[in-house]
């Protein structure tokens, strides 16, 4: 029990006593109706597999930019980041500030190449692109399997976060939240495919960027201004030992320097291996639409990142100054803050934004997983489906992926969920970034090089994460003491192997149109 003069930090108690819950419920329901309306509109426009998997290659600059912003940052920015900042200070922000270079890297290294490749060939997916570049069905198959497995498992962790948010709003168990969230996502994902996903991203991106501006103001005010927030934390007796309070407000927080720089690197360079982001460049209407996209993605990502920073720091200073009880879980930071310090309408918009951020990522994941299952894997096994078959089976596989993810999310233990978390950004970064990043910018990359690199990246990233999570002896005895960050370590190994193996293996015969892409 906390002190009576302190505000409660238990979301369960807060939600029970919160008088604005009806307003929050109405706002969130209204958002879900709009999301479903986008789904219905997109379903009417989706008549072919090209429209289902690549939005008919008709999206413009703003749609591309906001979709990239929404898909990159997802629910993590609004739930995980404030919680992590509350726990370890400013250092956690390095996961988010990678957007200072991530969008430039994405646009410069792969954006133009992928769009030009889609101009030259009928490319709809990342494995399509890999096959076009290396003329290797095994390479395409490995990429497709990595995407399918990684996406379905990673999706389960996203669903859990969505279930918690929906459960909060409508006051029921998170398990029902997972199921309801998945049903809404599937309604528009199965019908409208990527077109629905893109325009949901646009809607959600605009709302979150605008809501963030207001929430930033509320957070600074609640903490008594930035200087008060800084000095309350820095001079707190609770954090005096080892000058933790000073470090907490410093740029690296209470985390080791190499760890936070590794986060930055993994997100800034790993972005080129994220299939749901690379995929978006196949959908752009024409090459000129690339021009402003990186800039337009960066602006809202900075605004939303500042939100995570000020909410996390403000809640920490409120706790340290005795105005708020210590959080039950760090991830409750945003929920506790919204319920105590903002209005019900803004809380509703933020909850809806968080849920739709996760939904839009889930939709992108479901779409590329179904593309991998009905297009990429059959193609790599010499079985080509017709356009109509791809669309039909693509919709069925979307439902199957959604159901598998729900079952995984609801049936696994906490340890199981932590293991699912291993199949995240770092896995794709290690497995696919070197192949995509170097494959389309260096003619010397060979098919053997990329196969070795993808296998090493995939196996390396997953083994290291599993070793760490499960406390396996080979990891604890030999690796843990090295101070490496698993994703970056696996990424470096994968990158080195691609280059070295390519230097010593037979060069690929590159088709003239693909060579033109690499030369551009």
């Amino acid at each position, binding site marked *: 029990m906390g002190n009576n003069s302190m505000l409660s930090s238990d979301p369960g108690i807060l939600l029970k006593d919160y008088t604005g819950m009806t307003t929050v419920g109405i706002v969130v329901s209204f958002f879900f109706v709009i999301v479903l309306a986008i789904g219905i509109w997109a379903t009417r426009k989706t008549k072919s597999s090209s429209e289902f998997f690549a939005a008919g290659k008709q999206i413009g600059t703003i749609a591309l930019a906001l979709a990239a912003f929404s898909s990159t940052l997802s629910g993590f920015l609004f739930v995980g980041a404030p919680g992590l900042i509350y726990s370890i200070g400013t250092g956690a922000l390095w996961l988010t500030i990678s957007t*200072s270079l991530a969008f430039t890297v994405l646009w410069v290294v792969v954006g133009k190449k992928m769009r030009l490749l889609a101009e030259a060939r009928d490319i709809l997916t990342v494995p399509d692109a890999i096959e076009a570049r290396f003329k290797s069905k095994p390479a395409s198959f490995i990429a497709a399997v990595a995407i399918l497995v990684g996406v379905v498992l990673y999706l389960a962790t996203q669903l859990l976060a969505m279930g918690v948010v929906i459960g909060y709003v409508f006051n029921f168990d998170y398990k029902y939240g997972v199921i309801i969230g998945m049903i809404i996502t599937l309604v528009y994902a199965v019908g409208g495919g990527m077109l629905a996903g893109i325009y949901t991203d646009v809607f959600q991106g605009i709302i979150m960027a605008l809501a963030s501006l207001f929430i930033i103001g509320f957070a600074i005010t609640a903490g008594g201004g930035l200087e008060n927030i800084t000095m309350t934390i820095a001079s707190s007796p609770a954090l005096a030992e080892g000058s933790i309070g000073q470090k907490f407000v410093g740029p690296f927080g209470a985390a080791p320097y*190499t760890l936070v720089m590794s986060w930055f*690197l993994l997100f800034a360079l790993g972005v080129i291996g994220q299939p749901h982001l690379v995929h978006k460049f196949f959908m752009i209407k024409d090459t000129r639409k690339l021009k402003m996209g990186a800039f337009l*993605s960066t602006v809202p990502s900075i605004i939303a990142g500042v939100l995570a920073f000020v909410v996390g720091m403000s809640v920490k200073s409120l706790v340290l100054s005795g105005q708020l009880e210590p959080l039950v879980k760090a991830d409750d930071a945003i929920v506790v803050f919204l319920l105590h310090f903002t209005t019900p309408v803004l809380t509703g918009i933020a909850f809806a934004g968080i849920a739709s951020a996760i939904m839009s990522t889930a939709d992108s994941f479901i779409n590329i997983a179904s593309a991998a299952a009905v297009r990429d894997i059959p193609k790599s096994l010499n079985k080509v489906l017709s356009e109509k078959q791809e669309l039909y089976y693509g919709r069925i596989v979307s439902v199957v992926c959604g159901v598998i993810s729900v079952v995984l999310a609801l049936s696994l233990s906490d340890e199981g969920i932590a293991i699912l978390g291993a199949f995240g950004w770092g896995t794709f970064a290690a497995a696919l970034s070197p192949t995509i990043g170097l494959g389309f910018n260096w*003619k010397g990359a060979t098919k053997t090089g990329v196969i070795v690199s993808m296998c090493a990246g995939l196996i390396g990233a997953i083994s290291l994460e599993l070793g760490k999570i499960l406390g396996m002896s080979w990891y604890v005895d030999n690796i843990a003491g090295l*101070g490496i960050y698993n994703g970056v370590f696996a990424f470096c190994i994968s990158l080195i192997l691609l280059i070295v193996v390519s230097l010593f293996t037979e060069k690929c015969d590159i088709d003239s149109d693909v060579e033109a892409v690499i030369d551009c």
Partner: protein
Amino acid sequence: MNQNKGVFVILGVTILMLVAQVTKNYMLFAYTMPTLIFSFIFLGSITKNKIPKILAAGWVVMYFVVLISLLTMINIVQVPENITADLVFGLPKATAILLGVFWAFTGLATTAIYAFRFDKDILSEETMEEFKNKIKK
């Protein structure tokens, strides 16, 4: 710089980064981290086997902005008591550098460079025409 040279730079920097991790040398990591990221940006900027000069100059300036601001932040936090010695807009000076220079300025400036040089250096009409002719063959 051509593609092969760019890839050799990436290989060398990646090996150094691996060494930095295994030896827990955070200063070496601080040098290699922005170098590796900008090596990829340089590689991606190569058009017809060279990097347009103005674009290259822009990336070089931004590379030094990132590297110098990173080293400055590390230098300030070496003595924890110095962190809050100077405040800028209510934030410790090093944190203000992180938010204002390392993040916001770098993010806006690099993407603005991309947008401003797009028509001339990233994908000019001439390059696009050449590309279309090549893929028709």
